[in-house]
């Protein structure tokens, strides 16, 4: 495939951070729902359900980004720079997915307001 002559738009830089920005959102949201739920004495079942939904919603978003990046051949078309960004963005997104599972997976297992 021939590389495009126009430079890679700067907006693609966001893809390097996008996965971890969603991770930040997941951490803040889970922490906030947990704090509010415990303060207002929500019962354990609905609170855990809420936390799990928040976690899986964020995982779904990162998963979608991963899937989209995997098929984003147009980034690779921007020559060597495009290929570099594509590879870096894919791995940063995978790292964000793994970090989200590892850091917030406990919401599905542990006691919520102890």
């Amino acid at each position, binding site marked *: 495939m021939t590389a495009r002559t126009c*430079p*890679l*738009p*700067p907006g*693609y*830089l966001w893809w*390097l*951070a996008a996965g*971890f*920005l969603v*991770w*930040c959102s997941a*951490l803040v949201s*889970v*922490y*906030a729902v*947990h*704090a*509010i739920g*415990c*303060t*207002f004495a929500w019962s354990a079942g609905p609170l855990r359900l809420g936390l799990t939904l928040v976690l899986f919603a964020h995982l779904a978003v990162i998963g979608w980004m991963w899937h989209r990046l995997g098929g984003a051949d147009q980034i690779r078309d921007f020559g*060597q*720079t495009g290929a*570099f*960004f594509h*590879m*870096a963005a894919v*791995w*940063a997104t995978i*790292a*964000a997915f793994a*970090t989200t599972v*590892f*850091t*917030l*997976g*406990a*919401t599905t297992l*542990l*006691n*919520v*307001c*102890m």
Partner: protein
Amino acid sequence: MSASVDQSAQGSPALQLHRQLAAIWGTGPGLQRLAAVNHSIIGRRFMATAFVFFAIGGVLGMLTRVQLATPTADFMTPGTYNQVFTLHGSVMLFLFAIPLVEGMGVYLTPKILGARDLAFPRLTAFGYWCYLFGGSILTGALLFGVAPDGGWFMYTPLSSNVYTPGVNADVWLLGVTFVEISALAFAVEIIVSILKIRAPGMSLDRMPIFGWYMLITALMMVAAFPPLILGSILLEVERAFHLPFFDPTRGGDALLWQHLFWLFGHPDVYIIFLPMAGALSTIIPVLAGGPLVGYRAIVVAIIALAFVSFGIWVHHMFTVGIPHLALAFFSASSAIVAVPTAVQVFAWLATLAHGRPRWNVPMLYVFGFFFIFALGGLTGVMLAMVPFDWQAHNTYFVVAHMHYVVAGALAFPMLAALYYWLPLLTGRMAIHQLSVPAFWLVFVGFNLTFFLMHLTGLRGMPRRIYTYTGEEGWNWLNLLSSVGGFIMTIGFALVVIDLLAQLRYGRRVRRDPWKAETLEWAMPIPPAPYNFASIPHVEIGPDRPAPDGLAPSLARGEGYLGFARNGWQETLGVHMTSGAPEQLIVLSRSTYLPLYTALAIAVAVLAMLFHFYLPALAAALVVAGLFVLAGQSAGLSRDYGPLPVGQGVSVPPHTELAGSPPWWALVFTLIADGTLFASLLFGTLYLWISAPNWPPPQTFTPDLGLAFATVVALLVAAAAARGSQRSISAGGTARGWIGLAALGLVVAIAVVVGLIGDIVPRPTEHALGATAAALLAYVAFHAGIGLLFLLSNLLRLRGGFLSSRRSMDPHLTRLWLDYTVVTGVIALGLVSALPALVRSLGT
């Protein structure tokens, strides 16, 4: 039209060009040195000042070791000891580690990226003066016996005016915030410079790895410093005006300070570490004789590290009573942050394994780093585990860990970098007969001092105590730690002697003594103030431009901008990702304005310290005036269109392009501002959820009409700013639009002040009133700054700096006012919702 190119100088082409450029870029003699804005000068000043503060912090550290060497010592009184250890930590973190990183970034970044200077030379100089004056206030307080004495993280309520009634805590809060202006200025400067001012052809994938490290570090600073700045402002307001943000008896919460402090404090460890890792990633391939292994993996790893380092602030608060589930999040994050760090360490080891390492002084310090950092990393993972942390919390084990990761990870790479880049600074190599024993003294002394502190901590010795009875089993450990401290100090003294001797007796070297392949060696050493007589075109990379062959042709002016024009300080702006030439950036020349502005801030800080609030306000107004004045000499006063920059390329000056450095500077400034605003929202909601003594006895009824009127006034201002932008782009004067925008802002400020006056409970009575007042004050402050933008627009219109082509100013004003509208709507919405939120808590 193009401007004339001077051809008058005599001599060979290289010498001729050197004379012309030196006349433009040089700084004058004598007192004119105070007006310097050149990055090489400011970078050297940053580093030299940081080393002076390092010496002060080191002496303070040694004083604590003298006190603790033996039991029941009365070398210092408890009060003096508190000041000494507090200042030791504060100086080392805020006045040595961070500024050293800044100095290194300021000095090296343009050189490594093939640029002549940073994007905003006056901002660089302003940052330095803020650092110098803020640091002097902080350390000078020790001479008067009023240095901070509440620990380097200033925990409340100890630092509140109930338990610290003197000015000690104020010195820390105001002094450190003053210094942090420098850090934020540096961060914005570095981000914009790396993204926009590189050698043509240096696409981001060809950028030397050092550039990636500095870019990520600066982005982290933009997000990490605002929470601490906010915390410091709120605590100072509590101390000075009695608004109870952290006072639990009036609805505040001491833990809010811990959250705000560690939201800064933990990323700060990586803010210090990453530039040093960048130095290691530059040095190791050169000394190993091969390319860096895993460039892309390292880029991904430092992005991951940057984010995850923010998500682990609570691991400093594992013992404060946080629910177990939340402890699990932060414990897991604290463990996983080791992975991206390990990726870098393994990449360095692989680079060494694939090459043929040269054993020299920088490499000695690299190996010292590996040893120290591995130990610090391992104890970090231990402390990330909650059950272990509960045992070791607040003991000398934490002190030992902290020194291994912060001091070790900073000091050893710093000395490796110092010896590696010393020829660039001075043109001479170090004297190895002295530097090798100096290394071993530092290495042995460091480990003797701090390794034993792990054991002292595991035997239960708490931090911050000024003495002990001698029956606890800590005697020999403390004595050996103190002996180690002195050995380490002798080692550092030998390093200083080595450096001084090197200045006199070191072997002179020509360019590129290490056979490195980064651009800072493609210039004469020590470097000229313009760095490159002409700017190179980078065709391969990263880290592969072979400077030794490139340098002579650059000196002859065979690259870009190999000529002098109009007395301008010129460098090239490039496309952010591809590195294609995009704009001619004309930089500001030497001026005293940065010095005067920092002096005015110093006056304001000192006036606040002594509770002279009217003089402080007057000084703040002078600062605002100086900023507006600075705008009156920025940019070009006429249109030029595309100008030739060499190699057959013509580009417009930055003043005639939409995506120029000032635009990006404001974008990243607003990101920092937005982080501060988000921290304020977090603080408000945190107090609502967690603080004792909520709800307050009475609550205000929100005046939705006035809140709506404020939003409308802000919207009118933002819309008028758009009108002003369109008018100037069409060649108009836009005075009517600017007047309308100013009217909208004045109305908004007046209404917000009225809203603050109606808050119940009063801001001094309960944290509900205090947080509502803080949110409204934030809106009023931003509207006030918007007025300064408009005033500057008017003055620059009159001065001929704006035209249909040169219309950056109204774009900047519009961006600021858009931000003010968005944050204003959120702040007013939250203030209006607060009474309902309070009611939801019940009674």
